[in-house]
């Protein structure tokens, strides 16, 4: 970011320019985008003088808004809430739990927690330490604290909103007083989050200095902001299968055009895609339930044909708890009801992982009308895809690497919604609704000289394509090392030609690969990490940042263990010390993960 100074110098004094530069350092694309609108708003309101934006200084009790967010949803909610609160005159401190000293908790009097759940009921990475501290015996009494919790989650996971629930319960246990009761959000969190924010404001005392509220600091949407409600309709440029013809899987490279939409992203961000469900599956749902697709139903206050609702509004692939509960009632099936009650979490989890909505419709027939069907189905949620391109290297484009979910089960073909939409149903020239999910916890080092180690088997390699492109474009001198793995060398070496080119050109220093099905014994990236432990630890000692992307269930823990073992072996320390070293790396932002 240091290059911005000269371009900013002209209208500003030297000192101003320095201060502006300082203020901008470390901001990401969307923050800068927001600021440009903010500045425009200030200019337009004619009050762009310094004092106007400091009404809340030194007044009233500080309201601490803390978030633990992995994919940016919670962070977005938290920062909007903070803006809103400041605008209403509150004194607000906004922080990520990653930057928050756990011991400071006992001094807080007013705090809101916005926290999601990841892994299998685990806290997001940035909340890990506070979570651990809070649940431990070391946790202090919090009698002075008034708090509330907004939990983010996904009801297709059995441990729905687990981390939020744990925070909420534990804070009360430690003596805290609830400001409002917890609100648990599903993937369509916008409305619920808005209601929770309103309830919070209602529960708070009036701000001390309402009268001195300055201008409305709403951004003038000069640079457009795309989000779930106002996605960009991006044109499809290319959809290319990039696994060879004998591959056991289909992975697609998808290129979307940004034209001059102004959409910005940085390597590490993901792109949310609003899917359209497979037409054959929509037909099958109508067929099993025996409902006419032209029947109209109300969805979110809109009256539309059921067929349309099943295509674009409702989740008809992935299962969720609310659907199972509703369907248990419709089908009057005791076994399903028992499952949905969630007493046997394992069975429930197995069911959700291995079945889709259509399987339940087949297995537990029920006679329902269109509206009941629509009401029992969850809202169709956008799917995230790691952005596989660097905007600098590919102006006006965004690339994705999409693994198709398509499999046979119960004598029926099954499809994933978004992956087959992107891979198979979209054609060049079609438009697809997308928006960027900023991910500040998955970023290249600021220092272009710092080495990086990227561990990205399968589609986990996607963001590293962006990383390497970006570093090549910046002519960053830091060495880049990639670990990649897949099933078969011949057909599944994603972006092989590009990696070979980067190696030749020096934009990739090392590439280690593991193909699990090319030999009798299974070999994965973690084996390659162990094979190269000495070199890897040398890189870490040289200041390398380590990145892991891809499968959350098996890969990420296995890779973590391999990294720990590498430290144990090379530094001659015990496992706990190595674990602590990884934690420290994580705290320093030198061990970042984006796993799903």
């Amino acid at each position, binding site marked *: 970011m240091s290059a911005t100074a000269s371009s900013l110098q002209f209208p500003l004094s030297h000192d101003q320019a320095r201060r502006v530069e300082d203020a901008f350092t470390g901001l990401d694309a969307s923050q800068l985008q927001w600021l440009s609108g903010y500045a425009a708003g200030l200019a337009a309101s004619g009050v762009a003088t310094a004092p106007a934006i400091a009404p809340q200084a030194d007044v009233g009790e500080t309201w601490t808004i803390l978030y633990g967010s992995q994919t940016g949803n919670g962070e977005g909610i938290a920062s909007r809430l903070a803006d809103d609160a400041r605008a209403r005159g509150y004194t607000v401190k906004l922080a990520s739990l990653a930057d928050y000293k756990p011991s400071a908790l006992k001094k807080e009097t007013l705090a809101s927690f916005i926290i999601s759940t990841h892994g299998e009921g685990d806290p997001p990475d940035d909340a890990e330490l506070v979570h651990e501290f809070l649940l431990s015996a070391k946790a202090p009494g919090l009698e002075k604290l008034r708090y509330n919790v907004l939990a983010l989650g996904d009801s297709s996971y059995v441990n729905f909103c687990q981390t939020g629930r744990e925070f909420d319960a534990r804070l009360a246990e430690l003596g805290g007083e609830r400001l409002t009761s917890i609100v648990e959000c599903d993937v369509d969190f916008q409305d619920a989050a808005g209601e929770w924010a309103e309830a919070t404001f209602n529960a708070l005392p009036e701000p001390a200095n309402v009268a001195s509220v300055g201008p409305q600091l709403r951004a003038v949407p000069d640079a457009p902001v795309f989000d779930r409600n106002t996605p960009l309709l991006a044109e499809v440029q290319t959809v290319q299968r990039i696994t060879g013809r004998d591959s056991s899987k289909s992975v697609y*490279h998808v290129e979307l055009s940004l034209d001059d939409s102004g959409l910005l992203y940085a390597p590490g961000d993901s792109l949310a895609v609003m899917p359209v469900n497979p037409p054959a599956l929509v037909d099958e749902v109508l067929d099993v339930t025996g409902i006419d697709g032209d029947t109209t139903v109300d969805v979110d206050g809109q009256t539309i044909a059921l067929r349309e609702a099943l295509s674009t509004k409702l989740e008809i692939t992935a299962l969720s708890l609310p659907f199972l509960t509703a369907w248990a009632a419709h089908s009057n099936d005791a076994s399903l009801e028992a499952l949905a009650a969630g007493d046997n979490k394992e069975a429930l989890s197995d069911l959700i992982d291995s079945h889709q909505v259509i399987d339940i419709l087949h297995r537990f027939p029920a006679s329902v009308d269109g509206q009941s069907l629509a009401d029992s189905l969850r809202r169709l949620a956008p799917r995230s895809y790691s952005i596989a391109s660097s905007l600098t290297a590919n102006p006006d484009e965004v690339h994705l690497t999409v693994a198709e979910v398509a499999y046979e089960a119960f004598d029926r073909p099954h499809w994933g919604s978004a992956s087959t939409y992107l891979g198979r149903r979209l054609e060049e020239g079609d438009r697809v609704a997308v928006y960027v999910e900023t991910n500040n916890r998955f970023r290249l080092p600021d220092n272009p000289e710092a080495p990086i180690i990227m561990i990205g088997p399968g589609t986990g390699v996607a963001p590293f394509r962006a990383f390497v492109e970006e570093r090549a474009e910046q002519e960053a001198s830091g060495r880049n090392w990639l670990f990649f793995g897949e099933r078969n060398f011949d057909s599944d*070496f994603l972006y*092989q030609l590009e990696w070979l080119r980067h190696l030749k050109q020096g934009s990739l220093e090392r590439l*280690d690969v593991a193909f699990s099905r090319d030999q009798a014994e299974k070999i994965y990236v973690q084996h390659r990490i162990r094979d190269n432990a000495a070199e890897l630890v040398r890189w870490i000692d040289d200041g390398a940042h380590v990145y892991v992307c891809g499968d959350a269930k098996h890969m990420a823990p296995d890779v973590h263990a391999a990294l720990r073992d590498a430290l144990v072996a090379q530094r001659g320390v015990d496992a706990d010390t190595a674990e602590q070293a990884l934690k420290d790396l994580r705290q320093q932002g030198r061990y970042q993960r984006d796993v799903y």
Partner: protein
Amino acid sequence: MSKLSDVERIKTDSRHLRGSLSESLEAAITGALAEDDTQLSKFHGIYQQDDRDLRAERKRQKLEPAYSFMIRARVPGGLCTPAQWLNMDRVATEYANGSIRLTTRQAFQLHGVIKRRLKATVAGINAAMMDTLAACGDVNRNVMAPPLSSSNRVYAAVQQHARELSDHLTPATGAYHEIWLDGEKLPTPEVEPIYGDTYLPRKFKTAFVIPPQNDTDIFAQDLGFIAIVEDDQLIGYNVTVGGGMGMSHGEPATYPRLADQLGFVSVEDHLKVGEAVVTTQRDYGDRTNRKHARLKYTIDDRGIEWLRDEVARRAGVELQAPRPFEFVANGDAYGWQQDEAGAWHYLFFVENGRVSDVGERRLLSGLRAIAKLDVGEFRLTPNQNLTISNLSDAQKATVSALLAEYGITNSDRASALRLNSMACVAMPTCSLAMAESERYLPDLVSKLDAAMNAAGLDNEAITIRMTGCPNGCARPYIAEIGLVGKGPGTYNLYLGAGFAGDRLGCLYRENINEAEILAALTPLFEAYAADREPDEHFGRFCIRTGVIREVTAGLNFHGAAA
């Protein structure tokens, strides 16, 4: 002096063919070898190829080409034991594409071996005392010798000489054992007594032949030994030099050439004379231009007299005037025959040398069953065919039954044109192919059979050979109908070659497709049926009737000598 060709640098730097092959094999991020190593691997009998059918597709998939390797195993004189056959079958099935390819030089080729299986494959081949060293590269290649002779005594003597010469000219480098068989690494490179550090300027090919059959196409060889037999005794050889087929389209300085006779030598001298020819070519062959580096060009540049003197001097052997002999055909003599000792031999047609199971003709399985009997010998022929040899009466009966059971004897009913056809490998593996060959010639022959039948030439033997490019791997310039790939679906048509491989063909039509090939040949078949003289072969007929100019030397292949 002009600059040495790049391959010369690679050879010089290679530490006797080691290069960085071991590292290349280890590199897991590519199915290819390092670029220089792809030249060196050839000396070890290994060619890097890629599936050309998939090239464009894989590029779009951002995947490197579907690299695989062709491995050529030497079989001096084409002779192999049933155990060796079984081993080759096992290796082909386990590591390669499940078929065995018999070559135009009596060797085995496996296709589709991927890099990470390469070592295991080479080791597998070696397990049966066969090797791939010097099957390719700038060295002496597989030495050919006839699979059969009316006299078994002569056959055996010639076989032995071929084997001796083959052993004598095999490179001494330990690189092969080191790289492929995990042999011990020598502290300093061994001495290459014949080749020196830079080997030969180009490939070098040697064959033996026993008249009257010219099955090994002696005139297409750099070095040839024509057996001279008196009273059923092998007394010596007429030595031939300077044959070769390869040329490039549009480059008249390159041309196929038939060998000259250097002179007669007695049996004891064949090794000395052979070595002298090789070392002369080593020292005088053109190392600056690989398209001008074969012995045939050295001879046309310096004269046959010069070579004769040089060889005589180096070998310390007097070369006598060639002895008379006669060739009748350059094809194989099919069917059962019994030699003077009473042993049975069955030579049968293997279309384009491809041994695999296709429909009712289950060659691969049938030959496996026969090899498992562990009787007799397998002899590969220079026309991509096979002989099951040395069977007693009882064994003949058992083998016959198996041949019938697996549909192998079906080929006895093939047309004479088909039995005299050969095609090189070409697509999809050969990186030099411009047109189809092996995959296409069988269809074309069916269509030509129809035209010949219509002309009343039902069972007339005409030699027809096709290659996918002008390199001439199936020796098309010495077939009466020579078809040489020019582009996808188009060929140059050569006519007028000698039925015994003793005269080059001449370009008749350029760049023609199938319809044009049929249109060109049909009237010639009709004329041949109507106007030929007794025992006149098609090639000779074309010359006598003025259809085509007679080519009398390589230098006037492209037109009158300059």
